[in-house]
C-alpha cells in the first residue's frame, strides 16, 4: 500500500505535464481553426 504514496504524486506530476503540453499546443494555434485544414488536401478542386 505504501506504493500509493509514490504513485499518486507521480500521477499528479504526469497530469500537470500533460496539461502543460495541452497549453503549449493551444497557444501554438493548433486548435484555432479546425475547418481550414480539410481544404488543404493536396488534390486540387476542379
Amino acid at each position: 500500500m505504501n506504493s500509493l504514496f509514490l504513485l499518486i504524486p507521480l500521477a499528479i506530476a504526469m497530469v500537470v505535464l500533460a496539461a502543460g503540453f495541452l497549453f503549449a499546443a493551444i497557444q501554438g494555434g493548433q486548435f484555432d481553426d479546425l475547418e481550414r485544414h480539410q481544404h488543404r488536401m493536396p488534390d486540387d478542386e476542379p
Partner: protein
Amino acid sequence: MNHWEVYDQLLDQVSQSLDDGRREMLLRVEGLRCRACVRRLERALPPGPVEAQADVASGSCLLNWDPACLPLSAVLQAIDDAGFRPVVLADDASRRTARDERRAALGRIGVALLFGMQVMMLASGEYLGEIDPALRPLLRHAQWLLATPVVLYAGWPFLRQGFGALRALSPTMDTPVAIAIATAYLASAINTLLDTGAVYFDSAAMFVLLLSLARFVEAHGRTRAAARLRLLAGAQPLAALRREQGQLLEVPTSALRAGDLLVVPPGAAVAADGELICAAAALDESLITGEAVPRERRQGEAVCAGSVNAGPLPLELRVSSAGARSVLSQLTRLMQRAQLAKPRAQQLADRIAGRFVGVVLLLAAATGAYWIGSGAELGMSLQTMLAVLVVTCPCALSLATPMAHAAASTRLAREGLMLVQVDALHAATRVDTVCLDKTGTLTTRRMRLQEVRTLSTLDADACCAVASGMEAGLNHPIAQAFRDACPQAPAIPSRLDGVQGLRAETTDGVWHLSRLPSTTTDCAGAIHALRWLELSRDGRPVARFALQEQLRPGAGAMVRRLREMGLEVVLFSGDGQQAASGVAELAGIAGAQGNLLPEQKLRRLAALQAAGHRVLAVGDGINDGPMLAAADVSIGLADGAALAQAHGDAILIQDNLEAIAGLLQVARQARRIVVQNIGWAIAYNLTLLPLAMSGALPPWLAALGMGGSSLLVTLNAQRLLGAVGSGHLPVPLVRAAQT
C-alpha cells in the same frame, strides 16, 4: 506610385500591430479558387517579411508582415500582380478577441478533463468500499489538490459571474451553479482537513466539465458564423479615387467632403452618395434596393454609396453627402433601431433562477436551523444542510437548456444553417408566418435566357449572338444570362444608350437592345417570362428575349415542408408585382407583394405582427435589414450583403433553402427535449428534497444522484443530433462574383 498606396495611410484602420512590431490583417482575396492558387499567392510574397495564410474555403488571406521592411502597398501590389484582387477590409478587433476566448475556453476544458478524470478515479475508491483509514487522508488530499485547478481555473467564469450577479442582487442561472460548486468544494475541503464525513470533489469537477463543454459548443457556433460575416463586409469601400486638379488620387473614404469629384472604375463600389456627372451609367444597386438588374442613371441623377458600377466604363460623380449622412449608413441605423426593440427571453430565465436560488438558500438555512434547534450535533446538522444544497443543486436544471441548444446548433450546422442567436430557437417554435425576400433569397442572382422570339428574317441564334456580343463587356445578371446562352459570341463594342439600354453600330446597321416596359401586355403570355428585352436594327424590332429568374435549390421543397407544418408563406419583393407573382407561383407560394421599399416591407411585417402572427423573415440585401431585425426570427443568406447577415438570428451557409424548414423542425424538437429535461430535473429535485431535509439522504448519495441526473439530461439532448451520417455534406454557397 500604385493605387494601393492609400492603404499605407490607413494602416491603423485596416490592420493590427503585434508585439514584435509586425502587423496582421485579414484580406479578402478574389480569384482564390484552389490549392494551386494558394501556392501561387504564397509564392508571390517574399517569405521573410511577409507571412501569408490563404484559405480557399473562405476566400481570405491572413497577412502577417513587417511594415518596416515592406509597405502594405507593396504587399497588395504583389498580390495584384500575381493575378488576384485583394479587397481590404476594415480591421475588426473582435476577430482576435474571439480567438483568444476560444483558446482560453479550450484550456479550461482541457484542465477540467485532465484533472477531473484523476479526481474521479481517486474518488471511485470511496464509492466501491471501505478505505483503509490510514490511506484516506492521502486520497482526499490528492483529490483536493487535483480538484483545485478544476474549480478555481476551469470553473472561474461560473464563480465570477454567479457571485458577481449575487453581489449585484440580481442572481442569474450562474448563481446557484456557483454556490453549488463553491459549497461542494469548501465542504469537501473542510471534511478533508477534519478527516470526517464525505468529500464531493468529483461531483464539483464533473459539473464544471459538463458545463464548460456545453457553453463551448454553444459559443463555437456563434464565433464561426461571425467569422464568415466579417469576410463579406466589403460593402462600404474604405478608399475612393478623387479627381484633384486633373489628377486622380486615391484617398480614404473618411476624407471625402461634399463637392469632391470621384471616379469609380468598372466593378468598384461607390464610396459616397453623389450626383452623376458623366452622361449615363449602369449601377448595380442591389445592396440598397434588392433589385438585381442594374439601373441606368443619367447625368444629374443621384447615386447611392454602396452601389456598384456595372458598366464597362469608369463613371464620375460629385459627392453630395459622405459618411454618416449617406443612405447606406442611414439604413444601417434604421436596422439598429429595429433591433433594439427586440424582447429578451434571457431576462425571464434569469428572474426565475433568481427566485429559485433564493428559495434554495432559505430551505438550506431552515433545515440547518431546525436540526440544530432540535438538539442534533453540529456535524450531523451540517451534513443535512449540505445534502439539501447538493440535492437542490440546479445542475440538471441549468444543463437542461444549454445542452439541448448545443445539440440543436450542431445539428443545424450539419444541415447548413449557422445559429447566431441561440434565443432564436425558442422564438422559432412559435413562428406561424414565413416572409421571404425574392431577389437573391428565393431566387439566385443569376438569370436564364428562357425564350427567343424572332420578329424578322434573322434567326434566333443570330439574334442571340448579337445581343450576347453587345452585353459582352458588362457584368450584371442579364449580361451573364446571355453569356451562358451564347458563350462563343464575338464581343461587339456597345455603349449605354440613355435609360433604355445598349446601342452598337456594326456594318449590318445600328443595333439597340432595350428593356421593354413591364406593362407590355402582348408579351406576358408565359408566367415564367419575367423580363423582356427587345433587339432592334435601325429602329425595326428583330427579336424579343425572355429572361427567367432561377429559383434557389430547395425552394419548392422548403415551401412544401413549411405548408405541411401549418405555416403561412408570403413573398415580399422590391421588384415589380408581375415578377414577384411569377416567382411566387413557381415556388408554390400563394401570397406575393411586389414594389415594396424597405420601409414598406417593415410596415407590412409590423402589420402581420400586430395581427398576432409570429414572423420568420428570410432575406439577403441590406434593404431587408430592417425587416430582418424586426422579425421574431430572421435568417440571412451567406452570399448576401454583409449587414443583413450580421442582423440575422441564423445564417444559411448552404445553397439549399430546405434548411430553413429544418430550423423550424429542430426548434420544435429542441423545445420538446428542453421541456422533458426541465420536467425531469424539477421532479428529481422535488422528490429528493424532503428526503434530504429529513436527514435520510447522505450527501454522497445526493451527489451521485446529481451526477446521474446531469448525465441523463445530457444524453436526452443528444437525441437532437439525429442519426449521424444522415446529413449530406454542406455545399458552400458560391459567392456571387463581386460586380
